[in-house]
């Protein structure tokens, strides 16, 4: 393999459109040979450290982790919509019952109660019973939709175990290659999102009260 790596590197460089900019290296094949040897040494060192098998295992699990995370996102979205649909329908049932009750109360208040025929009252009671059953079904559906917590929780546990494998491998690699350089803060280019654990942090707020206090203290 030692011989293969430099040969591949050389071939790739020559076939690449960018190779024009590497004319210096192409004119000095020993440089490419040296790069190949170093690459091989790093590869062997990683194997000896036992890092590579772990990272390979983790890397092979990454597509699986992606699909698991996608599953979580989809499951949460579906659940939210299912719950919101049920809530909207249950609210409509409640509004309909409230309207019917108000009509009945209005009839009583206007002295029309005596003219209400028994059949009409019983029809209203039947409708209230039916609306109550439909509302109950929506509530049951909301309760059942909470199964997403159990399902996604299990998937999260699997993704976390994969992340631990990656972390172990990277920590082992860092220990071997540690250099005394100050740690640079990584700018992810994205915002932070929800604060999972605000305890002990002075740079974040833990609740709306702290937001209000902060803004008030600055005159906003």
């Amino acid at each position, binding site marked *: 393999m030692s011989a293969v790596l430099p040969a591949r590197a050389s071939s790739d460089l020559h076939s690449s459109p960018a190779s024009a900019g590497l004319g210096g290296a192409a004119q000095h094949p020993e440089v490419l040979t040296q790069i190949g040897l170093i690459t091989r040494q790093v590869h062997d060192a990683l194997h000896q450290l036992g890092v590579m098998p772990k990272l390979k295992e983790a890397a092979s699990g990454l597509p699986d982790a992606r699909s698991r995370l996608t599953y979580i996102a989809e499951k949460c979205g579906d659940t939210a*919509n299912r719950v919101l649909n049920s809530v909207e329908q249950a609210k409509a049932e409640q509004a309909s019952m409230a309207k019917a009750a108000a009509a009945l109360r209005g009839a009583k208040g206007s002295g029309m109660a005596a003219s209400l025929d028994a059949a009409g009252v019983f029809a209203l009671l039947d409708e209230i019973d039916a609306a109550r059953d439909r509302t109950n079904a929506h509530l049951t559906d909301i309760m059942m939709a909470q199964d997403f917590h159990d399902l996604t929780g299990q998937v999260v546990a699997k993704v976390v175990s994969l992340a631990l494998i990656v972390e172990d491998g990277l920590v082992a690699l860092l220990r071997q290659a540690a250099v005394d350089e100050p740690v640079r803060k990584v700018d992810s280019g994205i*915002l*932070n999102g929800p604060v999972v654990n605000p305890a002990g942090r002075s740079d974040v707020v833990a609740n709306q009260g702290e937001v209000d206090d902060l*803004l008030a203290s*600055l005159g906003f």
Partner: protein
Amino acid sequence: MSHPRDLKILVVDDFSTMRRIVRGLLKEMGCDNVEEAEDGVHALRTLQSTKFDFVVSDINMPNMNGFDLLKSIKADATLKHLPVLMVTAEARKEDILLAAQSGAAGYIVKPFTKAVLEDKILKILQKMAVAA
């Protein structure tokens, strides 16, 4: 002072679920005149073509985030009067200060309650009435 029910409100959030929740809460406050946008770009285009009275915006969104939307609104002579209430999961103090300094009318951290949303909207309307 206007009441929420008299307002035409634009709700900006990349999650349709959250837009739906905010719309539902606004409806419970009596406000039926609500439109939605899924990011800052869409929101800005909507604001430039239709007259709104109030904006409720998330911060962390693709294409154009809430901070950039807020700055664009405040830089636009025809839109700068619009009150923008930030509703976001971003809980860092520097983000809250940046929003306030950029002209946000209020800041709510998720998760939040209907009472908090209602309180913030009413306070903003009250402030606007005093300033007018």
